[in-house]
């Protein structure tokens, strides 16, 4: 009897989780399907699901009209570059705050987070003028630095939380065994915090990939990433839903695939320290 209830419950939970999962996945699936329809089929009512004339016309139109490889390469460089630069700066900062906290550590952390509360548009003009002054408008290096600065508070906070979970005694034991600071960070701290660092990297790559304010404003052609590529397919007067869907799928596919492969690390990292 008890077993039957458990099975019943299991089925219920499974169905429920699949239901929620599919609901969340539905918009992506619909975009995927629409990208293979003609513009007329894309707006047909009642909507057509699978039985329509599948066409690759939208993808070829999108590829013909814009430079997808360049946008993709820009997105990869900007997302990876800003995240790695951020990690290089944030690991020592988080280490110091977690293991050698000062009187004002908490205040510094909160202050860092408070910069995220400033509306981005508030610093738009100063940043544009600075970029213009240094002649780096529409360059990858500018976006790498800007996105690194924007995401740095999150990177430091996440790493700080993971580092705090590591007992100080382990580091002390390593020190007693004669490890210096470098060895302590490389051989003791990093392996233990690896899931945390991995999920921080993944999350920040996703954040940088999707950032659509600075990447659109500060670029024109040379450094324009996929966010600008998508923005070029939305039309105020005219129905180009199928082409917009094709462009969206092309823009999210790389990050979706990356997320798929690394979901184990992502989940492990995000729940790291959640259960005590």
């Amino acid at each position: 009897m008890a077993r039957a209830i458990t099975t019943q419950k299991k089925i219920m939970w499974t169905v429920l989780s699949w239901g929620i999962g599919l609901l969340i996945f539905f918009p992506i699936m619909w975009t995927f399907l629409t990208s293979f329809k003609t513009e007329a089929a894309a707006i047909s009512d009642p909507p057509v699901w699978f039985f329509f004339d599948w066409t690759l016309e939208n993808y070829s139109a999108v590829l013909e009209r814009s430079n997808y490889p360049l946008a993709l390469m820009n997105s990869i460089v900007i997302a990876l570059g800003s995240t790695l630069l951020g990690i290089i700066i944030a690991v020592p900062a988080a280490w110091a705050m977690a293991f050698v906290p000062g009187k004002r550590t908490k205040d510094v952390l909160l202050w860092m987070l408070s910069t995220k509360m400033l509306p981005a548009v508030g610093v738009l003009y100063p940043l544009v003028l600075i970029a213009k002054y240094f002649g780096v408008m529409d360059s990858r290096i500018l976006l790498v630095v800007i996105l690194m600065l924007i995401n740095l508070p999150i990177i430091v906070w996440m790493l700080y939380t993971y580092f705090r979970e590591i007992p100080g005694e382990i580091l002390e034991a390593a020190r007693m065994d004669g490890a210096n600071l470098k060895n302590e960070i490389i051989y003791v701290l990093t392996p233990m915090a690896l899931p945390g660092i991995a999920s921080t990297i993944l999350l920040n790559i996703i954040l940088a990939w999707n950032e659509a304010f600075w990447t659109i404003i500060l670029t024109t052609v040379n450094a324009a990433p996929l966010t600008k590529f998508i923005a070029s397919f939305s039309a105020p007067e005219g129905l180009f839903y199928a082409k917009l869907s094709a462009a969206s799928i092309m823009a999210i596919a790389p990050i979706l695939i990356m997320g798929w492969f690394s979901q184990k690390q992502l989940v492990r990292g995000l729940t790291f320290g959640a259960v005590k």
Partner: protein
Amino acid sequence: MNMKRNLLGSTLGFGLAAGLASIAMADEITIATVNNGDMVRMQSLSPKWEEATGNTINWVVLEENVLRQNVTTDISTGGGQYDVMTIGTYEAPIWGGNDWLVSLNEGMADDWNIDDLLPAIRGGLTVDGTLYAAPFYGESSMVMYRKDLMEKAGMEMPDAPTWDFIRKAAKAMTDRDAEINGICARGKAGWGENMAFLTAMSNSFGARWFDMDWKAQFDSSEWKDTLTFYLDMMNESGPAGAANNGFNENLTLFQQGKCGMWIDATVAASFVTNPKDSTVADKVGFALAPDNGLGKRGNWLWAWSLAIPASSEKQDIAKDFVSWATSQSYTALVAENEGWANVPPGTRSSLYANQDYLDAAPFAKMTLESINAADPQKPSVQDVPYTGVQFVAIPEFAGIATQVGQQFSDALAGNQTAEEALASAQALTTEEMEAAGY
């Protein structure tokens, strides 16, 4: 012999010099534009200009609001990232007045006939006699209606209907069981969405945004009449969820056969009559935007235009491109490649004297009459201190009108009454205008 050699030498010399000059002249320009059908077509035809001049174009195509934000930032900081920009009739007088744009009165190609531009369109892009943008396509608004449904309702659409007729016809055409809504109109909040429609509509009701002292006028009886009429008509005969419908949503509904009438941009005419996309292509009729017998019709005026920012370092090449893209020969090029029905409409008188075009575009006459009926210098029945038909050409307008649009959209969604929406609109407009120093 010597002479021959000299001749040969100088010919070669000239040829080489000319070749070098054209190599030195060949340059790259960056053009920012919106993703509208006519613009996309220009992009696909632009290799012809590139071949003829040896120059190349970097295209930056963006969604309208993103483009506006991008271009405003660039132009106000003198960024110089763009050599040609697509702007509307709202920006042209403001930016031109700030000396952010290059004058197009001189330096355009010889065959670029400035006097051929439609006076209403040209007037909207001119400040103190200086033309700051070359119109690429112009539009007004008009009534598009289903001839079959009108006939079924036992009514006949006049060429110049009144608002009362439209409301009556909408009610008669509505068939909720068959999912047919008598009237489709913009409800989505935004200065270029529902406020374009409602501001143009209010002109025909005798309302205005500001009096001659720049005081907001939403507490006037004319605005109350406008909004009450709009809400009543939409509630009686409009589609469900109309508060979320903008141009594209209504276009979808009309093409699916779910609207009896749709009052919107004249540029939509070519979409709804295109059998490839529209299920009702052969059943569409056109009429002027409605009026109330006060001497002004509820139609707007807009032109997507090409302008050259003062910060561009390649103004001569940019002017050459703008001349090409807004010339009569470009129109002929589009006609040759895509047919007369697809040429950019509403900018030049010569197009409306062209029989080939008139034969191919059943909406041509109505488009021209609608454009001619709009007067950006005197949009309302009463005197106003501003220019612009469906907008007020001041920098504060976009922000204020979007907030007002949210109030009106909220009223359409049934969350507040017309009186409440107007009171909020009056309060917020007064506050913003005072803060801006008016």
